[in-house]
């Protein structure tokens, strides 16, 4: 369980990124922070592995304040997929992925083997593992970043817009893979995106944020759709202007679901 207690962050230059933030993230679930650019998502995420220390309040993992933990040990125990892949340009892909394993003392051979395994999970093959990050496309680099986050099999996984530069098809595949990982391997995932559809696709709990890390609404996707807290949320999730309203039309004996502009969205079963 990850807990934010009245957390605030003002950077040394005076920017207040987060005013006061409270949230409980249950273990073995996926929580998604969603909000527009600059609202404090990355700042909140980085408080979990102490890449940012809050200037007020506390962040607790399983009731232990992270401020009391050694940052190096903490970071090695938490998977972190960074917003800008953040790969080491002078190391081959496979060595980038093996970094945390090597830091944790895994032998070279075993670490490489594991790295190749997770690389194939994110759809990269052995020939790509021998390249340098600069030889990959932006989307491929992001997938390497995801593989690196998964490599050490951490219980907590922080993912900061990990699929932003990936094409829609691969993105859907990776989302499905992430859901599989979460349910099969019981991970606690904190995921950041500014894509509300991705948030609803992945989140058990979705946190909609406004500027300054202000919580607009927290809840399961269905609950947010059913009862948006205010106009901001309704507009953010696309409920205004009929963006998400569907209705059923009969076509040749079948019930076809149609969206507000008349485009078919699917077929109603049963």
């Amino acid at each position: 369980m990850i807990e934010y207690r009245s957390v605030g962050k003002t950077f040394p230059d005076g920017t207040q990124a987060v005013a006061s933030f409270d949230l409980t993230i249950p273990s073995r679930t996926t929580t998604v922070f969603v909000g527009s650019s600059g609202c404090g998502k990355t700042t909140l995420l980085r408080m979990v592995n102490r890449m940012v220390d809050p200037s007020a309040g506390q962040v607790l993992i399983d009731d232990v304040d992270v401020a009391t933990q050694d940052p190096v040990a903490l970071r090695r125990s938490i998977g972190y997929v960074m917003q800008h892949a953040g790969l080491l340009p002078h190391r081959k892909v496979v060595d980038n992925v093996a970094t945390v394993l090597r830091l944790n003392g895994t032998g070279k051979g075993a670490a490489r083997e594991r790295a190749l395994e997770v690389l194939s999970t994110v759809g990269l093959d052995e020939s790509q593992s021998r390249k340098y990050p600069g030889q990959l496309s932006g989307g491929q680099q992001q997938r390497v970043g995801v593989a690196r986050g998964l490599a050490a099999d951490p219980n907590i996984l922080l993912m900061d817009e990990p699929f932003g530069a990936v094409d829609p098809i691969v993105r859907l595949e990776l989302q499905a893979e992430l859901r599989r990982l979460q349910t099969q391997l019981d991970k606690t995932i904190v995921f950041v995106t500014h894509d509300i559809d991705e948030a609803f696709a992945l989140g058990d709990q979705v946190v909609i944020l406004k500027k300054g890390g202000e919580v607009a609404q927290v809840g399961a996707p269905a609950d947010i759709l059913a009862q948006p807290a205010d106009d901001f949320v309704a507009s953010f999730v696309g409920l205004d202007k009929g963006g998400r309203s569907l209705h059923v039309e009969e076509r040749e004996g079948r019930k076809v679901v149609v969206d507000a502009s008349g485009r078919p969205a699917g077929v109603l079963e049963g």
Partner: protein
Amino acid sequence: MSVVSDAVTWLTDGAHWTGETGIPNRVLEHLGYTSLTLVMAAAVAVPLGLYIGHTGRFRGLAIGVTGALRALPTLGVLTLLTLLLGIGLEAPILALTVLAVPPLLAGVYAGVESVDPQTVDAARAQGMTEWQVLTRVEVPLGLPLVVGGFRAATLQVVATATVAAYVSLGGLGRYIFDGQAVRDYPQMVGGSVVVVVLALLLDGVFAVAQAAAGRRARPTRPATDPSSSTDPTPTSQSTTTP
């Protein structure tokens, strides 16, 4: 006109290539002073430069102090140190160290500072200790500039190590000082030529080392990587995501 041909005659005279006062021995002495100086300067400048580059602290102070050091005339420093320490190896080596520290320090901290902050942040986020961030990321990535600092320092020290002869030590400076004493211009010019050739050779060695460091730091930048040409993936893509 005759100075040049006399210098050539002096350089090609077999007698000047043997014995204690011969060119090979003077070159060895010269290289000895140079390496000793660089080791001393590195012992000061490398740890300081790494610290300043990694933490960003005392940067302003370092710029100020090295600026002041650069302004000191080496011959003046040498005279002063010789008066203080007496005749011997200490004074010239110290005077040359004062000369070598500024370019070396600048190269080291500029090298460490030049590393993309996002890369450093990523290394730290993976759980590297500060020492690991420094030795596994900042140093290898900043190495081209660090080697550049050594290159600049070496060039200056090799050229200036001639002052050792000023306080009765050896090295290639002997030809210049001894030649001047007896107005033996061919010997002075010949000695200077050897200094210049030595400096150019060393500079070449460092140029090669710097290029090698550059290839290690940015393995994908130049078209020297054989795997990149045969691969369909766009290699021109920058390392940052759009």
